């Protein structure tokens, strides 16, 4: 297995994930906007936040692909189906812990359950399974992560050694 194949898969997978999320917002299914959430961690300038957010989003996409690669190596197998299964776990983790709990705690402009009367949040928190951003957000997120995982798995399986 080739780690560069995982990197390439991570890039293609993030493109697919981003496209699915963006299409879902256009179809009025959700208000999730991961680059905006990531970018506003660093700046309150809206255009800059979008630019930084997209860079961070793709960087995370590549990092997660390397995480998938490590799992493929340890299991000594790979493929689109196994990648899709990782995507399911990844999507559930993102909705329940990563974006729901971790992001609000470290995000300087987002409200969280740790806030007291001293704080005034600037951004709406995602809530469990990101349901605050729309009822179909968990489904959209899951579909996007499954697509991401399947693409990474396929790239690793078919990558040239």
């Amino acid at each position, binding site marked *: 297995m080739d780690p560069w194949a995982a990197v390439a898969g991570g890039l293609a997978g993030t493109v697919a994930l981003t496209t699915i999320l963006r299409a879902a917002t256009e179809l009025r299914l959700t208000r999730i906007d991961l680059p905006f959430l990531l970018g506003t961690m660093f700046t309150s300038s809206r255009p800059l936040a979008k630019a930084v957010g997209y860079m961070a989003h793709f960087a995370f996409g590549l990092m997660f692909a390397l995480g998938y690669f490590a799992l493929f190596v340890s299991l000594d197998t790979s493929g689109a189906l196994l990648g899709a299964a990782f995507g399911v776990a990844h999507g559930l983790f993102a909705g329940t812990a990563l974006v729901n709990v971790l992001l609000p705690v470290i995000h300087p402009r987002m409200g969280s359950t740790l806030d007291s009367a001293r704080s005034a949040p600037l951004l709406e928190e*995602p809530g469990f399974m990101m349901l605050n951003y729309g009822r179909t957000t968990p489904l959209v997120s899951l579909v996007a992560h499954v697509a991401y995982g399947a693409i990474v798995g396929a790239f690793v399986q078919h990558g040239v050694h």
Partner: protein
Amino acid sequence: MAATRRRDGHQVYAPIRDHAAIGDGRTVALITRDGTIDWLCLPDLDSPSVFGSLLDARTGGSFVLAPNVPFEVRRRYAPSTNVLETTFETATGSVRVLDAMTLPDDDGLAPTRELCRRVEAISGRVPMRWRVEPRFGYGAARSTIGERSGIPVATSGNLAIAVHAWDAGTPAITGGTIGATFTATTEAPATIAMSVAAQEPLVFPTRDDVERRLDGTIAYWRAFVRGSSFPMAWRDAVERSALTLKLLVFAPSGALAAAATTSLPESLGGERNWDYRFCWVRDAAFTLSALFRLGDVREAESFFWWLMHASQRSHPSLDVLYALDGGLGSRERTLSLEGYAGSRPVRIGNAAAEQMQLDVYGELLHAASTYVSARHRLDADIARRLAGIADLVCDRWGRPDAGIWEVRSTERHFTHSKMMCWIGLDRAIQMASDGHISGNVERWTAERDAIASFVESRCWSDARGTYMRAADGEDLDAAVLLGGLMGYRPATDRRMRQTIDTVARELRDGSSMHRYTGEDGLSGGEGAFLACSFWLVEALARSGQVNRASALMFELSSLANDVGLYAEEIDPDTGAFLGNFPQALTHLALIGAAVALDEEAA
């Protein structure tokens, strides 16, 4: 109040005249004299409404903010701004409300859209109440109301609003509404802000951020006014018109919406209800002329580039109108709303987009000519396209069309359409001789002369002493005045002067004018068309009748509402506004009339 019931079962609606407009270059909110926002589409002007009680008082949704006791109202715009200042006088004191759609600045994260309502007591203590009743998707979309971090939030699909109240009571969520009561005092001004998120998480602004943006918004509008140059005559009316046009310019593209609303009726209870949240090519020539005359060069450039970009899709044919983002979306359909004062159907989209209206070619070429006259250059591609449009005019001018008034009856050879075709070819020839475009100038010249022969032989009536509405017809049309204003013949020409006199005599109804006589394929009547009245002022002034023009302008200025705005039409008997509001064409025509009076009086 906007929601009490009349005996015939329809809801009672605030008169169109009672509305003021605020906006941010993306969308426009309408506010009644009693402090109710009854029209706001989000996130953009042509999106579905969230507050739409203007078109259905029962299901449309609104944002009420007013004293909880009987009151008298005075209103104005904060000087040289689009920020509304409403003063409520009550028995216990008086209170001033500043309403604005704030503009984002470089400090702090701003919501997608933000509506700010700031309450300042001037004297005494005034019990106040406010109630936000969001009804997404023209009142038809499913929505939920809850809280995030203690802030009331309403969501529907990819749209959400949050309501922030500072010193304005503790908001309570009751059914589908968010609201509170509080007492306004001189010690503690209150602010209520509604932040909007579209396709993204909600941004919750701080009070300091909102109030800084409100101050910045006031400063921006004043800078916009300072950067414009207004004629000395009728300066205040022109300034308000310029500010209103700026509200109707959709900033992301530069397109000018014909009005902020859909389906406000041309006759109460009638079927003449249209969606005006589109950009009409027809308005292009007026728009560019007005923007250049006012010195708003950036807006003029932006509008011309939008126009050429949007029309690229259908080249060399032109659609009559385009969506504000230049895209599709003009398919006409009806909504199951009660309609303003029971005026149904309520339409969204506009079927006029599919009509054949020959005058638009002349208007586009005239706009391009105005653009190059202001020392702007055309790139090679646009120059080629303009030449292609001139060729198309040569091919098509002999056909009947639906005309400027978009009649839904049989197509005819309308005089105004032919005059505009002549003007289009004349401008193309001029641009070619100045080296801006190149093409078959000989053919353009021959066809231009053929159009003139047609108009002079078949559209002129010796018996009536006027250009008629259509070839070989008996009806009159105020639009033929535009032939004199846009250069088919000078307004001082004998035939044009006779036409001005006939139109003034036979189409005037008090201070205002009807558009035309004869049928148009629709049932029911309509009010008097305000733009035509201002065209008559301009025509009178340009034909040397400045005193008559000034007298009419005085009368027309008294027809504006209390904050200086005009709708499309007016009922000559009652003075009630009719049609969509505020209307760009009326304000464009006002600017043209004021400039003409200023220049001709000099």
